[in-house]
């Protein structure tokens, strides 16, 4: 196994080099063709330069998207070519599959509970980090650390913390004793699976969201806050009447990305075993159907359902956001 097979590496390397050389040739040719077609020099160069990415997108993204839409209407076990079954997959999904709706419920509930709580936490952290304290750079780096750690490692860490004699139960043991109750079993108790995942999601508070909100907070014009102070507004009034409206576009962004991320929750539930599959999020279910049951057609159908679900929820949030997101530019235009 550990032997050195020079010819393997060389043949792979030569293929890579060949692909690279061909790609450059293709780019040059594209440029020449476009120039020939009287396309501006700049535009031709632009198209030539994005060509590798464009090809990659078409071959590795667009084609699989389209193909999975086709697969959603087929029965496909990988070994045999896909068989057209019409709406059969969707009929089974909506009316017959006993595991589908519980999975949808878990996923949607998780998104609706974890995202607002997570946003509140991220905002609070951002407010703290926006203060003028000593070594603020150090704190900001420290609080960004969680998003640098690999998700799988975090999942295993949390599983260990939630163990029956794990860190969390050890910390809570005085409370258990006080209330004279049995220790909670967290992921091992079907009823506590959702709360456990929500608690675990708080880990995501620290990281990208905090940084985005911190940047937004730093962008709130000082003049507004100072003017409000002069007018006698207290810190709470300033925060709710000025800071929050001013950062509301960032909050909207964080909310939408949060909802999309929560609905696609995958790594953690894949690594954490729960009784009776109580922790089967939709994305995990798709994976199971596709890669352990080899029902690629059915898995594609669920994937497209998830896509539509995300789209609808995102559009709803966008519509609702008109009521609370404040865009300086828009208001100015309306006033005119």
């Amino acid at each position: 196994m550990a032997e050195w097979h020079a010819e393997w590496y060389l043949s792979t390397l030569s293929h890579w080099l060949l692909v690279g050389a061909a790609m450059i040739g293709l780019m040059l040719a594209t440029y020449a063709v476009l120039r020939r077609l009287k396309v501006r020099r700049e535009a031709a160069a632009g198209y030539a330069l994005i060509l590798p990415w464009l090809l990659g997108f078409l071959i590795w993204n667009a084609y699989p998207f389209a193909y999975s839409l086709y697969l959603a209407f087929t029965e496909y076990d990988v070994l045999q070519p896909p068989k057209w079954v019409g709406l059969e997959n969707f009929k089974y999904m909506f009316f017959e599959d006993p595991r589908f709706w519980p999975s949808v419920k878990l996923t949607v509930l998780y998104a609706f509970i974890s995202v607002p709580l997570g946003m509140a936490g991220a905002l609070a952290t951002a407010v703290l980090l926006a203060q003028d304290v000593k070594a603020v750079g150090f704190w900001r780096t420290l609080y960004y650390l969680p998003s640098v750690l690999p998700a799988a490692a975090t999942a295993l860490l949390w599983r260990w913390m939630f163990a029956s004699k794990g860190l969390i139960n050890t910390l809570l043991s005085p409370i258990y004793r006080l209330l004279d109750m049995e220790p909670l079993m967290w992921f091992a108790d079907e009823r506590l699976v959702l709360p456990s995942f929500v608690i675990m999601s708080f880990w995501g508070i620290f990281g990208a969201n905090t940084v985005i909100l911190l940047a937004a907070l730093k962008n709130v014009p000082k003049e507004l806050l100072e003017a409000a102070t002069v007018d006698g507004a207290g810190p709470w009034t300033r925060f709710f009447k000025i800071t929050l409206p001013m950062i509301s576009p960032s909050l909207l962004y964080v909310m939408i990305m949060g909802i999309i991320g929560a609905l696609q929750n995958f790594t953690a539930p894949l690594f954490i075993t729960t009784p009776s599959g109580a922790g089967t999020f939709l994305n995990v279910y798709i994976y199971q159907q596709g890669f352990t049951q080899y029902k690629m057609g059915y898995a594609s159908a669920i994937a497209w359902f998830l896509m539509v679900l995300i789209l609808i929820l995102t559009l709803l949030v966008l519509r609702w956001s008109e009521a609370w997101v404040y865009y300086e530019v828009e208001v100015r235009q309306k006033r005119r």
Partner: protein
Amino acid sequence: MKRAKLILTVWLTALALVLAACGGKSGDTGGQSGTSGQQSGGTQQTQEKVKIRLATWAGAEEAKELQAVIDEINAKSTTFEIVSEPIPADYYTKLQTMIAGNTAPDLFWLSQEYIASYAARGALLDITDRLAQDTRPAANLDDYFPEILESAKYQGRVYGLPWIAQPVIVYYNKALFKEAGVPEPTDDWDWQTFRETAKKLTNKEKGIYGVAFNGWPPVQMFIWQAGGEVISPDLKSSPIDSPEAIQALEFYNSIIYNEEVAPPLAVINEEGFAELFKKGKLAMFFGGAADDLDRVEGLDVGTVLVPKGPKNRTTFAWTASTVISSQTKHPDIAYEALVELTEGIHNWKIVAPRKSLATKEHLVKSEPRKEKSADTIIKATQEMRAFRVIPRQPEWDTIFWEQVQDPLFSKKGSAAELARAARPKLEELLP
């Protein structure tokens, strides 16, 4: 306009080159012929031997041992050279992808649940007729344990050669028996004595349990022991609600996650399953014959046959076969390689699924570390059997777990209710 034509030609040539390069890349994983022009330079081996690709799920250590077996075979052969391609993770996903992409390996391992399924979908080469004309010992089907060979057959035709039949035996921790003052189990024990023994050995305060179940050992084994079946011999019914099957399901349910005798699910999830035994927290463990549970450092481990059920002492055998892809370009040479490889593996893995090789001498020769347990293992082979499988086995297994076993073990219904409700759904999947 001439220039435009020239440019177009250049563009098309470049596109063709990219496509060729991409094609060449996938051809490399599939290319066993060694004739592709790009690889002309510097290969020292003789090109006459046909490369036969073999995919296995072997991990690092196992792959090394397998390579030694293969090296010996390759040295002797004048027609083929087996190239081992171990895939220790996501084996079946990668295998299916290779088959779908027309780059299937010539030979590959399949565990018992999958052979009927792959054969029914046309992925495997039927080797029945070739075997009939072959006089080599590894091709002599009469020498194989019939129950094991059955798993490599589909509709009466043979699609592979089993290379292992690992019967389940019971490993036990002698120190824990001594501590609890319980006599060590003997081969004549039955379900009742087994459960009582487990109960006496359990000491919840110390975190010591008699035995651990978690879906393993397979409940099928206990159903067979009670005289029942999960799939009938004619593959026409799934009588999981027969009195025999119910009796076995109830017995299994009286052990699994029951803190009188066994650890709850949370403990197993957190501490591991076989690991509990290795840590000295389990007195008994149902393990495959080849498992390393009898050579754990610091543990004095004995072995005994599985306890006898109401009707018999059938034990489950984990078995797997090497099969030939129907996509192979060299069916005859692949078949040659298969038989030689199977003979080689039978002298390496325990237990070789052949009656003539199920002896203590052969077993110890293949795996000297198993000497202590050899008697038990050889006795177990006499009463072992594999699953009876159908093409839609993976789906069948999922329903049997999700709608019978899992709800039963998490106390959501009685064995009789659940089995009766699930039976029609299971039978829908039968051929």
